[in-house]
């Protein structure tokens, strides 16, 4: 199978696990989508470093775009890439992040170190951001 096929299958499995198997239902929660939008920004940056400098290189036969060139960087946006990374990496990252959160919340729900819960933020955070509490 190609990376494209595997990435799509992994997303499908992740969705099924989240909604119907573990029933964590992250994909229906505001908490997840706000967290994920922060995560995806940093994912694009760090993955951009790994793929843009050719630290990780891809075979064009396995992805929608073409192979990582021998000498120079792959395309920044276009040719099946976004921030140098193959768009398949976004699907891979989605599965990795969502599956991690599924396991994390499922364990907490079953009573494994549910406590101490997170928060509240230290007052200094709000002060730094200029938000009155």
């Amino acid at each position, binding site marked *: 199978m190609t990376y494209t096929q595997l990435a799509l299958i992994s997303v499908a499995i992740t969705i099924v696990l989240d909604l119907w198997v573990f029933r964590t239902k992250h994909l229906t929660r505001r908490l997840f989508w706000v967290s994920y939008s922060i995560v995806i920004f940093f994912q694009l940056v760090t993955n951009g470093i790994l793929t843009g400098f050719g630290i990780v290189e891809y075979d064009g036969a396995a992805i929608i775009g073409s192979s990582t060139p021998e000498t120079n960087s792959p395309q920044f946006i276009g040719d099946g890439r976004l921030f140098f990374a193959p768009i398949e990496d976004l699907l891979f990252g989605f599965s990795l*992040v969502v599956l991690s959160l599924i396991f994390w919340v499922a364990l907490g729900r079953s009573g494994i170190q549910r406590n101490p819960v997170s928060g509240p933020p230290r007052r200094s955070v709000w002060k730094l951001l200029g938000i009155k509490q």
Partner: protein
Amino acid sequence: MSKFVYVSVLLGCLAGTAWLEFFLRTRVYQRTWRLILTIFPIVLIFSAWDAYAISQGHWTFDERYITGITTVANIPIDEILFFIVIPICAILSFEAVRSARGWKAGDEGES
């Protein structure tokens, strides 16, 4: 030193999220056992994917930028560390948002 480029990116991820544990009181590292139990299956699942992808040549690594230490099925140790670090960063971000906004995740328990 270029051998540590990949690992340095991961260290950057850890350093970039570590402050959340203190300032947003995410209590992720504090719940060590739960964190370990979360990461363990992730490492297994994604290492299997990695092993297959490496065997099929889906992706390769520039040997100048990885440590050169290889684990099972030709998986560079850098990749194993990736499957540990990224879940930690994701969970820290998730718990940081929960800390700041108080939104529900479904594991709050009764009352």
